[in-house]
């Protein structure tokens, strides 16, 4: 951790889907520069919690403070906050009618109001970083899943966010493509940006995470450093989960 400053503060957050309680009184502080990995069985609320941080899901109770702004407050300028929070999705969600370069340029130009030259310069740099610059003029439909996901990471980074959210970024990928995406994410982790990652890749969690959060039934039931979590967890549910997947 680079500093001890809290950048995301989640306070007593609850969320219902009808009568189903997806999040149940969750509280969590994320520190600036921290690499946080959230794991847990499906339906445990980990994706919901992640999506709540940039308000793709609105919560029913509690407060979420991102970089000093309470985003649950209806008067908060949500677009402003989302500029600071990059998001990478399981299904990539690249814009299919735009080329790779245009995908990375678009929000820079219309949200950040950068000129095309300026945006292209930043995009070129980022596409080089995720090692896909040679495809800059292709449409997403021609790329493999792993390539699309790397473009999606570049697109989110182009906004120069303070926080990056990853929602199961490798779950939709063929096994041989998972590695190339994780490599990019590890590279990113070394640069000190705050990362919150929902994943099933335990190797990645062990290697990159400063802290691991284990969720079940909408609650955080266990957290700790990778070493504590993987080797010394006392929590029964976490143990059962780890036994199943490791």
């Amino acid at each position, binding site marked *: 951790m680079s500093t001890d400053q809290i950048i995301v503060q989640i306070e007593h957050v609850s969320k219902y889907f009808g009568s189903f309680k997806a999040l149940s009184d969750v509280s969590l502080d994320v520190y600036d520069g921290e690499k946080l990995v959230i794991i847990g069985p499906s339906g445990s609320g980990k994706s919901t919690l992640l999506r709540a941080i940039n308000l793709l899901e609105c919560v029913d109770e509690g407060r979420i403070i991102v970089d000093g702004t309470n985003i649950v407050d209806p008067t908060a300028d949500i677009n402003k906050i*989302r500029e600071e*929070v990059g998001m990478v999705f399981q299904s990539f*969600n*690249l*814009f299919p*009618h735009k080329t790779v370069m245009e995908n990375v340029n678009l929000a820079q130009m219309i949200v950040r109001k950068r000129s095309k030259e300026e945006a292209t310069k930043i995009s070129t740099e980022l596409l080089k970083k995720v090692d896909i610059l040679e495809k800059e003029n292709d449409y997403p*439909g021609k790329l*493999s899943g792993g390539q699309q996901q790397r473009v*999606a990471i570049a697109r989110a980074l182009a906004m120069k966010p303070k926080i990056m959210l990853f929602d199961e970024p490798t779950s939709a990928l063929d096994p041989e493509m998972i590695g190339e995406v994780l490599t990019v994410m590890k590279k990113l982790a070394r640069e000190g940006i705050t990362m919150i990652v929902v994943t099933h890749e335990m190797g990645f969690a062990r290697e990159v995470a400063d802290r691991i959060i284990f969720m079940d039934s909408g609650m955080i039931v266990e957290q700790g450093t990778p070493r504590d979590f993987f080797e010394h967890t006392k929590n029964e549910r976490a143990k059962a989960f780890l036994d199943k997947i490791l």
Partner: protein
Amino acid sequence: MPKPWKKKQSHIEVSEGGAIPTRNDWGLFSAWRIAFFGAILMVVCLVFFKPDPYLDILKFLPDGILVTFKVTLMSIALSLVFGLIAGLGRISENRLFNGISSLYVEIIRGIPLLVQLFYIYYALGQVVNLSAITCAVVSMSICYGAYIAEIFRAGIKSIPEGQTEAARSLGMTPFQTMRYVILPQAVKTILPPVGNEFVALLKDSSLVSILAVSDLLRRGREFAAQSFDYFEAFTMVALFYLIITLILSKLVGIMEDKINVD
């Protein structure tokens, strides 16, 4: 129709050409050709072999064709505006906007166009004084706007939710998301059915002839009323409508192909 981006997770090989089936199979294409050139040939033959009265009809009708074009084009432009606004209203989370749009669509689709034409021309004509052609364009646009709104709504809904989420998570406003991400993609789904509406609108524009708008049909009636050549006049009117409609549907087809290639 091939839409490579729908298969998000697969790698699409693009062949050198020829492998992608074209929209028009041969049967449809030749049917269009037979109808189109047949109609033109028939007009030419009739005028050539029986100039009286066909040549006179041929000279008499073009004014009406221009009026039909004018009414159709203005109605298309205006109905697109109504359709887009009401279509966005139908998917809006704003209750009032949504409610008004839904009401508009339900009411207008439940009243025959002919009744709407009468209503705007005669009933509203008592309150505000509008020219026949204005009334015609306004009622056609209101009517077709309601149908087009439903096409817009369906087209916008057909774009996966993830596209909106991706755009919003990059800080785009709902308007920017619609303008730069959703609509450009939805156009491909929207265009074919909207094109069909245009063709239908062109044909329905013949209804405005009862508002004393001198369109193609009315010119035919006027000619027939003077000369009593009902058979000849309406044969020519029908052939002209057929030719114009076939041209328009061809144009719509070409436009679709263009958009699909881009």
